[in-house]
């Protein structure tokens, strides 16, 4: 049996490339099978660490806006995250609208961050886009930073009255949660 001889004699001149590719294939097939099998076992374990069904279940929160005084904000909880709802003064709105987009770290007009006709209300996810601390600034007595919005105590990021980042290390503007106005004094987040 020439075949058997060739197999027992690695690298000899008589070892044809045809045999080699056949044997490589025989090795690769079970290896590929084992890799797929290992992946199939690993995936459920990895995915089990993702947010579970009850966490994902989209909870929504309604917020009554009437108790919020002009110039200050409140913090409500939605999906375990703090949400800032702030009643902006005309001066704050004007500052937010007038800033040149070229001066922003993540350029975005104020109009894209509020609901039409409700420019006095800004609703934000109150989590610093740097490393997740909760910025200060809802209370008028809080430090609000140079741009009058929010100031993050952890590494000094500053946000303007539209929640846009004006001073690093945070790379992005404060995020806006999905929400809608139910009427002029009530919103639903989520």
């Amino acid at each position, binding site marked *: 049996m020439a075949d058997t001889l060739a197999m027992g004699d690695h690298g000899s001149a008589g070892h044809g490339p045809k045999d080699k590719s056949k044997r490589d294939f025989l090795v690769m097939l079970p290896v590929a099978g084992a890799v797929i099998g290992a992946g199939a076992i690993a995936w459920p374990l*990895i995915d089990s*660490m*993702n*947010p*579970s069904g009850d*966490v994902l279940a989209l909870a929504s929160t309604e917020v009554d806006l009437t108790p919020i005084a002009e110039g200050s904000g409140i*913090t409500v*909880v939605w*999906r*375990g*995250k*703090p949400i800032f709802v702030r009643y902006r003064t005309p001066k704050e709105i004007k500052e937010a609208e007038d800033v040149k987009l070229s001066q922003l770290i993540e350029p975005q007009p104020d109009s894209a961050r509020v609901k039409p006709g409700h420019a006095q209300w800004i609703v934000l996810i109150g*989590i610093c886009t*740097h*490393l*997740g*601390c*909760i910025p200060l600034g809802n209370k008028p007595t809080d430090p609000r930073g140079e741009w009058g919005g929010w100031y993050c*105590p*952890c*590494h*000094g990021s500053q946000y303007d009255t539209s929640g846009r980042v004006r001073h*690093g*290390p*945070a*790379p992005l503007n404060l995020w806006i949660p999905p929400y809608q106005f139910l009427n002029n004094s009530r919103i639903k987040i989520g």
Partner: protein
Amino acid sequence: MAAGLFKSELKNPVLRWVDTRLPVITLMQKEYGTFPTPRNFNYFWNFGALATVTLLIMIATGVFLAMHYTPNSTMAFASVQHIMRDVNYGWLIRYVHMNGASMFFIVVYIHIYRGLYYGSYKFPRELLWMLGVVILLLMMATAFMGYVLPWGQMSFWGATVITNLFSAIPVVGTTIVQWLWGGFSVGNPTLNRFFSLHYLLPFVIVGVVFLHVVALHITGSNNPLGIDVKGPQDTLPFHPYYTVKDSVGLCVFLAIWAAFVFFMPNLLGDVINNIPANPLHTPADVVPEWYFLPFYAILRSVPNKFMGVMLMFASIGVLFVLPWLDTSPVRSCRFRPIYRILVPLLVVDVFVLGYVGAHHPQGFIILLGRVATAWYFLHFLVFTPLVGLFETPLPLPESIAAPVVRKSPSGGGPIPGGAVAKPMENA
């Protein structure tokens, strides 16, 4: 000897019966009894043994803490208070564990300094060194997750800031962070998995320590002269010489640890962690435990989030490639007139980084942090390769025994290791 049995030289018939079937006793004798060890160790060579003992104490105290601890976000804080107030000796077990983490890092940092100063990372010990860096990373992960368990304000916000580091990864960052959390913020699922991993990782560390020691026993130990062992006259059997020397250091070390536990148990901790976690209020200052401060300072020195995170990981990463960055063939800094200044300077630099990490990043602190960060990387990436090329090392001694023997009153040639051992055996 029957076929398939190990040829044991033990005299005791019972031990011999075991040893012929499972030669662990012979193995221990070979690796920790007669193991030939350079005769010129100083006390820096204690720290590997100290780290091993610390790891065992951490596991022992941790297992008992876990019997009383509840990994649930509504009960964790209270269960730690229960350990402190109600459980018999709970305060002792917790304080030993809590301060043990600090002791562990002190010991390991000194152990690493020893390696840096005496060139223990160089050929042939590169892999041994890299396994050490793996142990350091695993220790950091373990300590970080352990600190989350008491679920105080610093636990919660430390966890938030550190897990958010991964959000710097482009595109998939947020997905990864939510996967780490098991939710949309740090919460009960996070606490549960951290407890599970905090229990697991120390045993992984035990495994890597085992590999670290296997690698050590292939290459043999380095020594303060950094030159190779040339023969039996350069070595002593590990037992009793270094078992005794290690025991001396261990007594001092345990006394210091005990002093912390009994007289200043909360000195190294942060008082804010005595306030239960509040997801809606970030404390005015989020600072990590002292052993992470230098790395935290590097993170904060860079105004760009992605670069800051990368640089922080790179600060450990450079240790991995250090064996190939150092171009000098001489190991010990004793014979390296320039590098022997640079290594202690690096220590000063790391202390400066630690100071910066503990303070609010404002004005001068920011500048200091940037200079110290730059120095850290310059040390490894520029000074280390260049100094190796241009420095003229001092002449190396011809052997470990030579400088020792020359001083001896007899003034004769090399004394065989066995002869030196005699006076001890008579005692």
